[in-house]
């Protein structure tokens, strides 16, 4: 090795080692090493693109029946890739449209519960004492209200609207999130490193942002990945009761419900929506697991 290359080498080494990395950059690299999580990411991305542009690619519409084909199996000839339902509507388009609703409900309701739940729980837990007491009794109060009763009241007062589903589900789900986050925060705020941050001159908000939230992430992410499937299932349950999305609009939950009734005569009408739903739920679970591991530095292989 010549002098020049050795110098260049040591310089490169210096540059590489001295550059600081943050938890999130590290976490991203770790996530990319996790095959299941990467596969889940790809599945979810494809799913989102598919439900976004899918309906435009098809000649059919989700509400207008094909008068020539009732309950036909999937075939390339007719152009109905996933077949048609008992009313002659194209199942491919309906699955995509249903996917839009299901994913939207899942993501929006979860996001609502995430934002409200994490900030509410973190504030209650961090400040503690009387603030905590009042905030958590309020949560208990809402908890005591039956969910169905809450949804029905909303429907009666505001009329039927898909956004009400988001509101209703989000309004109930953040309670669990707030409780979990509060408990975690309570245990975190007494840790030495939080006091160390205070001794280093950090303000309360800096401490919450730099120390409390990052340390909450592991638990929160796992809970989020459990919430998304749960929300999608709750929506399909509401649709089944006639409180969710209404015909001709549909969702995966509603499609599965319809398909299940025609299982013997038209199995394809269950198979396609159900496999989309299952694939999505799987992907969210794997992604959640991957994120949790990636965000925990101790788990680094």
């Amino acid at each position, binding site marked *: 090795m010549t002098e020049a290359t050795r110098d260049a080498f040591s310089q490169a080494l210096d540059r590489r*080692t*001295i*550059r*600081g*990395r*943050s*938890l999130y950059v*590290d976490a991203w690299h770790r996530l990319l090493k996790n095959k299941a999580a990467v596969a889940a990411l790809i599945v979810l991305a494809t799913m989102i693109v598919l439900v976004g542009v899918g309906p435009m690619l098809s000649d059919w519409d989700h509400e207008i029946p094909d008068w020539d084909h009732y309950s036909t199996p999937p075939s390339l000839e007719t152009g109905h890739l996933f077949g048609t339902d008992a009313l002659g509507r194209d199942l491919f388009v309906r699955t995509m449209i249903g996917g839009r609703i299901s994913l939207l409900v899942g993501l929006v309701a979860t996001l609502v519960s995430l934002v409200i739940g994490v900030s509410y729980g973190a504030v209650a837990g961090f400040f503690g004492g009387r603030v905590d007491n009042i905030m958590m009794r309020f949560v208990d109060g809402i908890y005591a209200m039956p969910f169905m009763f809450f949804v029905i009241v909303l429907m009666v007062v505001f009329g039927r609207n898909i956004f009400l589903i988001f509101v209703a589900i989000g309004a109930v789900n953040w309670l669990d999130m707030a409780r979990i986050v509060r408990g975690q925060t309570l245990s975190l705020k007494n*840790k*030495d*490193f939080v*006091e*160390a*941050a*205070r*001794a*280093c*001159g*950090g*303000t309360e908000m*800096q401490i919450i942002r*730099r*120390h409390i939230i*990052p*340390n909450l992430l592991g638990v929160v992410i796992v809970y989020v990945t459990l919430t998304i499937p749960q929300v999608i299932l709750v929506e399909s349950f509401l649709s089944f009761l006639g409180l969710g999305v209404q015909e001709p609009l549909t969702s995966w939950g509603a499609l599965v419900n319809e398909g299940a009734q025609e299982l013997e005569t038209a199995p394809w009408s269950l198979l396609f929506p159900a496999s989309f739903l299952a694939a999505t739920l799987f992907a969210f679970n794997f992604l959640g697991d991957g994120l949790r591991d990636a*965000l*925990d*530095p*101790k788990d*680094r292989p």
Partner: protein
Amino acid sequence: MNPRAPVLQVRDLAVHFRVDTGSLFRHDYRVVRAVDNVSFDVHSAETLGVVGESGCGKSTLARAILGLVSAQGGSILWQGEDLVGLSEEALRLKRREIQLIFQDPSGSLDPRMTVGEIVAEPLKVFYPSMSRLQIRERVAGMMKMVGLSAEQINRYPHEFSGGQCQRIGIARALVVNPRLVVCDEPVSALDVSIQAQIVNLLKDLQKKLRLSLIFIAHDLSVVRHVSDRVLVMYLGRIMEVADRDSVYYHARHPYTRALIESVPIPDPVKERQRARRSLEGDIPSPLNPPSGCVFRTRCPYAIDACADRVPALETLEDGSQVACIRHEELAEQWKREADTDPTATETSS
């Protein structure tokens, strides 16, 4: 006396905690006097050792000096300015000059931050205008100063041993160039072999940076190694303050004497020979401290008068201070004992 002006003057400091004892419908509480009527000075570039059993208020004292717990009375004069009663924001800014080193080395480091971020944190708080490059250089320099390598900044705390974590804690405390560092039992969680390294590192850094240190410990031999002066606490009160040698060779307070006698001697022959007068019983509950002298329930020399009033912290002619009404007669009694039984002095040295 030390001719230099003190950087920190603590006067009659009192830190009380309320303990709720009420039930759901009845509001009631009792007061724990965790630190009561404590006064002392810390001079520039001096190490003040603080010793006492667990639960005697050492850590509370440390946190009160930094303003992490608020004092109920007295004053903490930092370079002439009283920290008690300052606003939260003003106190926060003072922490650039007074820093804290923790007992639990890994617990005081955020597990989700890289070591580089941990050491850089005080810089980011106090010097928001500092560029990334400047911060990086300062952090790298600090890492080297405490005996770690700059390449380790991207590691996480769990990848380090206890001793290394404590070095990181020291780097974090010193990165903003404080004048006073409060070390809250910095070595008691470490292996004995590592303790010496950390203590010597602290001593070296103190000399290099001309720091004042308040070194809290329950290990008397460690305190003896680092301190210029030693303060002995019991149940939230000062028992004795004196120069290191005078504490170890001529302890004036019965409690100090008992503490020193309880230190094992690493020579089995001498250890077996010496007469041990170990303390009996536990520290009384701070919720319900004894009247008068708080130490009287365990003091072998207690007389009835000890229960009557709280002994004042008396300053003697050599500058040391002691809070015991019998310290004069006891000093003579111990001197006589030492004359008749030469092993007695041996044990207390």
